[in-house]
């Protein structure tokens, strides 16, 4: 069982890395030179990609009606979640972006806009 978990974890990593890196590499090799220069050495994720992945994590949350999820929603006011659900969503975002968000920061993230901003500004988000 534990071995299966370890294997699953390994299986999942390359897939995420590929989908993450493919567009970036394409723009390096085939995109215009100005753009490749500006993104060189910058590991920050693209804003659109962050928004898309944050929204998909929130939509996948069992208690959420996916049709209500937009980049502007507040987890409790707009999606009818409680504070425990909010903790779970923030933790699901940690796993999606391979981050560990300290309690002090995690306590503040209660909406999609705050989650998106936090992740975009986080140098380690992957």
């Amino acid at each position: 069982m534990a071995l299966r978990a370890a294997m699953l974890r390994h299986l999942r990593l390359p897939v995420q890395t590929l989908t993450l890196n493919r567009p970036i590499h394409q723009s390096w090799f085939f995109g215009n030179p100005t753009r490749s220069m500006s993104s060189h050495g910058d590991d920050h994720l693209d804003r659109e990609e962050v928004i898309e992945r944050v929204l998909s994590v929130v939509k996948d949350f069992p208690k959420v009606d996916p049709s209500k999820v937009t980049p502007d929603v507040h987890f409790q006011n707009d999606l009818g979640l409680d504070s425990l659900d909010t903790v779970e969503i923030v933790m699901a975002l940690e796993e999606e972006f391979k981050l560990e968000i300290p309690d002090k920061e995690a306590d503040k993230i209660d909406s999609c806009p705050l989650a998106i901003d936090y992740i975009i500004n986080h140098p380690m988000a992957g």
Partner: protein
Amino acid sequence: MVTGLQKQVLGLYRGFMRAARGKAPEERRRMEAIVSAEFRRNAAAVERKNFMYIEYLLRRGARQLDQLKSADTVALSTFTLHRSHSSSDDASSG
């Protein structure tokens, strides 16, 4: 409005969910379901102003989480033992 006590409760909840992450998928789901049900049960049953009792539950929860984490260490050593067995099996068969 989030009070200091509420933050502590949410912090404890996060601690339990983090501990569950280290488990195998089935065990993780089971643990998350138990923890979630227990927190929600108390959220509904305990009077919000009953600070003494909430503080007692927080202390009890923190203690349980500590025990869970030390149980984790035991599980990890079991896993290593099991893995070394299976890798020697692999070596002899292949």
